[in-house]
Structures are given as structure tokens and as C-alpha cells.
């Protein structure tokens, strides 16, 4: 009976309050396949995964495991059935070792009842070598980078001998090489007979890794497609219920380029950045591409006053700019959309209105110097409409919004400040396809209105599609510069992986 699917979902439904998160969903997951589940935010992916992981129970319908109906009452029971989940927000203990994390809550005991460190360390070492990981069981998890932390989570599931591993948005925080490595690992697990459910927003990656793809929309099953027999536009159409004409908005041909707004000269931040020099014009979108550690994050942090610069000069509209603090940066007309909206961007337990107006409260005061709540609501209303934030009330807490709408609230917060230079660090991370498109259009529109935008993204297509110019950084230096349309994804990737600075390469060419 090897043909029996590992998981069969039979008309599974789940409601939260009055909202149907899942509505009569039925499909199958075969043993030993990599099965992607895609859909926009709110499509029901997470709810479905939580049902399989035992976090919630279905209101209706049946989950069959190897042909047998099961009730997964809690995560422990799911785990006993061999189902493990790696959540998008990693659940690790940063101050504990890798081994302690892998065995958290399942510690091995010695005969006298003490914790058996050496057995756990040995078992962890075995799993880590299977994963080709380059860190030790005794390393502190907090000292690992995000890709390595994810490996720790995966090691934990492997050590539990799971037959089904659910990866929930595993790539949202990974860069390209880290993703490639994750793919190798995931394929390796499949080849050893483990079934993988892969939940993701990034369709390119889904197509690179998955054997079959299931699409959900508004809590309903839309279809399961064999990857080899379908295309990205077909999947997108199934996800959003309509065709998307093109991935990136057309660039309007500006007759004359704007004035130079930003000049960075010989900027150095020891040890990770520089010397780096570039300039940017009004109405220009300048993209930065680079691998982890290329210095882009540092560059943005320095420009926004979050890290001190060691030496160099920054001119904004010809005047010296000293980014001593984020406050100084804001006063200088800068805005930064940070890469993690949960941790660095939004007050998650606050309303849309409070988040959107936090930076401009001093302009929303009544005659008595107190905050004028009507002005707060007017301002919020303006941005809710302008950015198309989908909500029934501006008093809704942002934690209850979809990723795309959260990102729009974060954009609203900074646009209210009417910045001259906007830094976007991975502006569509964890954002669904429809909202992504809207954010691209917004960026184009802001540039057309004369804003200077500096951006980077974990998706290379996004940097290529959105930017007028792309600087490739490696080890803190600019190694290449591309005009829009000049580079393909492969060329850009190649440049990112190189480590020869631009001027050096040029002088070599001359010699």
C-alpha cells in the first residue's frame, strides 16, 4: 500500500469567529514529495499548517495520515505521529547551545536521571553532519546567523525522526546562497524518504524546489499542479483569481534626470564598509545588491544614523550631512523602512492610526498642545486610502493585518513624514503578490514625484525590476554598477559573488 498518500485532507474546514479561514479543503500529499502550498496572505496556508501541526483542530472534515483518520489534538500528538513544523518566526533559545536547542524538552537522561550532555552532543553532531552544517553542537544559537539558526530547527525535526516536515516561509529571511543551500538540504531529506510541505510566497523558489504545488485562495482549495506541467503566471492567476499583466510597473521616461540629491564620498565604517562613493538624483531609484555581509545593511544603518561612520563625507543637496542619530536623519529628510517590520518597524499591538501618525504627532496638535485625535484620524484616513490598506477600521491592531497591509502601514508611517530620501530594506518581505505589485507602483510613483529611493531586496528580480541603477556591493565595496536593463539575473548574481572592487577591476582591465 505504498500508493496511499501520506496525508489526505477531506473537506477540512476551520472558522475563527465568523470568518472561515479554511472552507472544505481537500487534497493529498504523497509520500516522499516536496509539496508547496502557496497563496496570498489570508488564503489559509498558515491555518492549514497549524491544523497539521496540532496547533488547532479542524471544525469539520477529516485528516488522514497514511489512510487512517487522525485527531491531532496538540503539537505533541502531531509530533508523535511524525509531523514537525519549522515556523517562519524561529522558536529557538538564543542563550543555549545548539545541542540544547535540538533536544529542548526532549532531553536525554543518563541512568542516574541527570541530563546526558555527551549523548545529546553526539546525536546533534550526527544530524548536523547530515545537514552539512559548519557549526558545532556547543555553539550558542544566538551567535549563529539566520540561515544557520534555521538549520538548527531542521536538525531538531530530523532528530525527531519526522516523516513529514512543514517548512513555513523558510526563505523569507535567507539570501540567495543560503536559499540554495536550504534547497540542497530539502532535496536530500526528500531523497531519504521524508515528505516536505513547503509554504512560501516566492514562486521562483517554489518552482525550483517543489514537485507539486497546491494553491489556496480565500480559504478554498484552487488546485494542485505538477510543477513540470505549469507556469508561474498560471499559479499567480490561481492565487489572485486574475491575470497579472507584468511583474514590475513601467518606468516613465523622464525627459531630464533630476538634480543630484545625495553624494556619498569615501564613506568608511570600520570594519565592514567602504570606502564607498556614489551619488543619487531626485526621482531615481538606486538598487543595492549583495550577499549577506556585503555591507548594504551597514551602509543603510550609517546613512540613517543607526551606526556611526568612521570617516568620509555625505552631502545632501550639496550640504554636509552628519547622521549622528535616527532623529538627525529624520530631520535631514531621511526615512528608513527596516527589513523586519515586526521587530524594527511597527508597534504590533497598536492600532493602524497610532502607528501611521507616530512620527508626525507634533503636527497634529490642538491649540492646547494636546494631540488632536480627529487630525490623527484624518491623516490616517488619507494614507489608508492612498496606499489601499485593506481594513474595516483604522483602530484595528496591526498585528491582525496581513503582511502586505502591515507593510503598507509601515510605509504610511514614513511617507507621512514626507521624506526626500527613502531607504527601503527588503520592502516586500513576507508580502503577498498583489500587495507587492502595489508597493512597486508606489515606489515608481514616489520617484516620479521626485523622491530619491535607495533600496535592496532579498529578491534579486525585485532589485533588477525596480531600480534605475544597481550597485553591486561585496565586502563593503562597490564592485559593479549596472544601468537599468543592462544586467540579467545571472550576471548580477555573478557580480554579487565576486569580490573584486570596481576601480581595481577597471585598472586590471587597463593593464
Amino acid at each position, binding site marked *: 500500500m505504498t500508493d496511499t498518500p501520506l496525508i489526505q485532507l477531506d473537506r477540512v474546514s476551520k472558522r475563527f469567529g465568523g470568518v472561515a479561514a479554511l472552507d472544505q479543503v481537500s487534497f493529498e500529499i504523497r509520500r516522499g514529495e516536496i509539496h508547496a502550498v502557496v497563496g496570498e496572505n489570508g488564503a489559509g496556508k498558515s491555518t492549514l499548517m497549524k491544523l497539521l501541526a496540532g496547533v488547532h483542530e479542524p471544525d469539520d472534515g477529516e485528516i488522514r495520515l497514511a489512510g487512517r483518520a487522525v485527531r491531532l489534538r496538540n503539537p505533541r500528538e502531531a509530533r508523535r505521529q511524525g509531523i514537525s513544523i519549522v515556523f517562519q518566526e524561529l522558536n529557538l533559545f538564543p542563550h543555549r547551545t545548539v545541542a540544547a536547542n535540538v533536544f529542548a524538552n526532549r532531553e536525554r537522561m543518563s541512568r542516574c536521571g541527570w541530563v546526558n550532555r555527551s549523548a545529546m552532543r553526539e546525536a546533534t553532531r550526527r544530524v548536523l553532519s547530515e545537514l552539512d552544517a559548519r557549526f558545532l553542537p556547543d555553539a550558542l544559537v544566538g551567535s549563529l546567523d539566520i540561515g544557520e539558526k534555521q538549520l538548527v530547527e531542521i536538525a531538531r525535526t530530523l532528530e525527531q525522526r519526522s516523516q513529514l516536515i512543514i517548512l513555513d516561509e523558510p526563505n523569507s529571511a535567507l539570501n540567495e546562497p543560503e536559499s540554495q543551500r536550504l534547497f540542497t538540504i530539502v532535496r536530500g531529506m526528500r531523497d531519504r524518504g521524508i515528505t516536505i510541505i513547503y509554504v512560501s510566497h516566492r514562486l521562483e523558489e517554489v518552482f525550483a524546489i517543489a514537485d507539486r504545488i497546491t494553491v489556496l485562495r480565500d480559504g478554498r482549495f484552487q488546485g494542485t499542479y505538477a510543477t513540470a506541467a505549469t507556469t508561474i503566471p498560471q499559479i499567480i492567476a490561481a492565487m489572485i483569481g486574475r491575470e497579472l499583466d507584468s511583474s514590475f510597473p513601467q518606468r516613465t521616461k523622464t525627459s531630464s534626470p533630476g538634480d543630484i540629491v545625495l553624494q556619498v564620498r569615501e564613506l568608511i565604517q570600520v570594519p565592514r564598509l567602504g570606502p564607498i562613493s556614489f551619488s543619487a538624483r531626485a526621482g531615481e531609484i538606486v538598487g543595492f545588491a549583495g550577499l549577506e555581509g556585503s555591507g548594504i545593511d551597514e551602509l543603510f544603518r550609517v546613512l540613517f544614523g543607526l551606526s556611526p561612520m568612521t570617516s568620509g563625507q555625505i552631502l545632501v543637496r550639496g550640504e554636509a550631512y552628519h547622521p549622528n542619530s535616527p532623529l538627525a536623519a529624520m530631520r535631514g529628510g531621511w526615512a528608513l523602512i527596516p527589513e523586519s517590520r515586526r521587530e524594527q518597524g511597527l508597534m504590533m499591538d497598536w492600532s493602524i492610526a*497610532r502607528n501611521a501618525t*507616530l512620527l508626525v504627532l507634533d503636527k497634529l496638535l490642538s491649540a492646547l498642545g494636546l494631540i488632536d485625535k480627529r487630525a490623527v484620524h484624518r491623516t490616517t484616513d488619507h494614507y489608508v486610502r492612498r496606499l489601499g490598506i485593506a481594513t474595516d477600521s483604522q483602530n484595528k491592531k496591526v498585528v491582525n493585518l496581513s503582511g502586505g497591509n502591515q507593510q503598507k502601514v509601515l510605509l504610511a508611517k514614513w511617507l507621512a513624514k514626507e521624506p526626500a530620501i527613502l531607504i527601503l530594506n527588503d520592502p516586500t518581505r513576507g508580502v503577498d503578490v498583489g500587495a507587492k505589485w502595489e508597493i512597486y507602483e508606489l515606489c515608481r510613483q514616489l520617484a516620479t514625484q521626485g523622491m530619491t529611493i535607495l533600496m535592496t531586496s532579498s529578491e534579486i528580480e525585485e532589485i533588477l525590476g525596480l531600480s534605475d541603477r544597481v550597485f553591486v556591493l561585496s565586502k563593503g565595496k562597490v564592485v559593479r554598477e549596472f544601468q537599468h536593463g543592462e544586467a540579467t539575473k545571472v550576471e548580477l548574481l555573478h557580480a554579487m559573488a565576486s569580490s573584486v572592487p570596481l576601480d581595481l577591476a577597471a585598472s586590471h582591465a587597463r593593464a
Partner: protein
Amino acid sequence: MTGERGAGWHRLRGIDEIGVLVALLSVCGLLWLTVGDQFVRPSNLLQIARQASSYGIMSVGMVLLLSMGEIDLSIGAILTLVNIVTAVALREGMPMPVAVLVGLLTGAGCGFVNGWLGVLLRIPTIIVTLGTMSVFRGLALVLSEATPVSNFSKESVLFDLGGNTLLGVPTSVWVMLVVALSGHLLLQHSVFGWRAQAIGSNAQAALFSGIPLPRYRIAAMTIMGLVSGIAGVMELAFLQSGSPTTGQGYELFVIASAIIGGTALAGGRGTVAGGILGALLIAVIRNGLVLLEFSAYWGTVVTGVVIIAAVAIGGFVKKQ
């Protein structure tokens, strides 16, 4: 009919202070049933209100601190120190307004030092104030030589009015209401208050939003010191003598008041009205234990138990 009632209840539940309000009314009801007239007679109610005013005044600062994700354990000691400093200033012949000003500046200064040390040494305020709590109390003992300070003239508006009643209500209660109103405006209606709560909600995002965290931290600690000072001066006005033992353990009652009132210990949420109601609840509990003739020792035990119960009931009512 039931629909309307349901909606009304739903709206009530939306009020942050509903938990503490229910707890307060239940405790009052219980005391009325058990000790009756003794509890509700005016002199006893005034006594409760006056006792609550000290906790209440300080809870305003504590709600601000907690909603910023900070805490201050030294407030009882600041109250004592201000109480003694003001008394000593009067004894040394300073005019009443000057003595009061010196006292309040001492309170604000203590708070400033708490905040400044925390920022300078990068230590959490809970640790800083754990230390300064002993420092301030020690200074009060040194200044007073551990005995009450009372050899000064009591003929000023501070004692005539401040230690007395105004329109039948203890003056310290009026002071509490003024402090509470100011605190409410500061927390819910001023830019400072919203940004302070932003820090409590997500400190990293607040940093990325250009909010100068150290400045806010110092300012909030200074305000906390100032309101503790106000409470210290009001205690002096009532007792007519600087007491080196007053204010002992107040920090716990004040923190409990704020938390019972719905302020999240983790920051990001809190209301001044809740803190005041929490202070009232604690004062009622302490008063009730005396009326019920618990021994002072058992009274302490029961106070702690009732505080935990009140927080639990508050949380339960809010969830229902």
C-alpha cells in the same frame, strides 16, 4: 432586550479599567456586608481616601514608567527622603514654599539620578533603583538621625489646608486628582506620552523611529521622582512631622496598583484611571483588614494574597 444588554456589556468590557472596577466594587460590597456601618461611616471613608491618595499620586508615575517598559523600586525611599528633607528645611527656618520646593526638587533630582545612571551605565532601571532605594532611604536616616523631625512651625497653609480637608474631602485627594488629570493628559493626549508608550510597545522600532530613548527614559524617571516627592510632602502635611519610617514598602503597593489597574508589566499599555482605582482597592483592602481585626502580621500576609487575587480576577473578567 438581551441583545442590548449584550452590547452594553461588550462595551463595558472594552474599558481597560473594568477588571479593577469589578474587583473594587466586590471588595467594598463584601466589607459592607461583613463590617457594615463601621466601613461606610464617613470618617472611615475619608481615612481610606487619604491613604489611597499617597499610592494614587505615585501610581500615576508608575503607570507612565511601566507603559514605557521601565520600573522604579526606589519610590518609597524617595517619598521618605523628600518627607525628611522638607521637614529639615522647615526646621532650619526656610519659608514654607521654599522648603516645599526644595523637597520637590529633591524628589525630581532622585528620579533624574535613577534615569541618568541607567542610561550612563546601561543598566536596567530595576537594578539601578534596587540600589538607589537603599541609598535614598539611608540618606533619609542620616538626615533625620533616625528620629521624627517635628520641631518646626505648623502655622502655614501647608498644614492648615494640606493636612486637612477641602470641601469635606482630604486635600491630598484633590492633589491626587490634579496629578492624575495631568498624568492622563500627558500619557494619552501628548506627543511625549504616545512616544513613551511606543518605547514600551517596541523599543527597537521606537529607536528606528528616531525617538531618543535615553532622553525619554530620564524624563520619565524624573517625573516618577517628582510625583513621589509630591506624595512625600502631602504625608508631611498630614503627619505634621517628618518620619524616617513612612513610605516603607510603598513601592510594592504602587506597582501593584498600576498592575491591578490593567497596566502591562511588559509595557505598551496602561491607564492612569486604572492606577488610581488600583490604589483605592489596595487602600480599601488594608483598611478592611484592620476593621476585620486581623493582626497586623496576618494583615500583611492577607494583603499580598488579595493583591494576587485581584489581578487574577481582573484578568478573568476582561477575558470573559
